[in-house]
């Protein structure tokens, strides 16, 4: 019973973080901020869901190192790979002329490259 509560807490909190990210995307004004708010889902939402699955897996079929390693790979993948892709996408979106909020600070892509500084 306690395990179900723990797993429920983890998984539901993870799903709520994905929902927070979805709502933030509804409210975002321009493309770049929509890419930015994705981090709530990948940084916290998905790792919590995987953690809940890990707790449930440990509770039912006992502790297993291989599952722990796979879960860690999944969490690191969600956090790192998604950030790299979002960064890449944001730069591509800016350079391809997507309309951005004029209040975007700092905007180093707009300034001249500093030569030799």
């Amino acid at each position, binding site marked *: 019973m306690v395990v179900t509560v723990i797993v429920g807490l983890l998984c*539901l909190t993870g799903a709520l973080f994905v929902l927070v990210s*979805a709502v933030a995307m509804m409210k975002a004004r321009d493309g770049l901020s929509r890419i930015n708010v994705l981090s709530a889902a990948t940084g916290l939402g998905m790792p919590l*869901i995987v953690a*809940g699955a890990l707790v449930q897996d440990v509770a*039912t079929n006992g502790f297993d190192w291989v599952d722990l390693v796979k879960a860690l*790979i*999944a969490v690191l993948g969600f956090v790192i*790979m998604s950030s790299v*892709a979002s960064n890449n996408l944001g730069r591509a979106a800016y350079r*391809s002329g997507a309309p951005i909020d004029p209040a975007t600070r700092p905007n180093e892509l707009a300034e001249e490259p500093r030569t030799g500084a």
Partner: protein
Amino acid sequence: MTVVVAGTVGVLLVAAVLGLVRLYTARDDASVAAVSDLLYFCAVGIVVMGALAAGSSITFDVAAIASMIGILATIALSRILTRGRR
């Protein structure tokens, strides 16, 4: 246990539907890529919860591979956005 899985899948479905609504209202490519990423993570979450409910042994293989491979769509679309340049 089924209540947990049903609740989580329900919340993820609401997030996916919100993403779809955003997809139809915002047409610029950056938002399309970002919202498609969100939909992808909702799908991965639902698959992991389904594997959890079924008690399958490959839950973490699916999660690990999904986190590694899944972002290629975002990288591909960002390359499309810049018309092939870096």
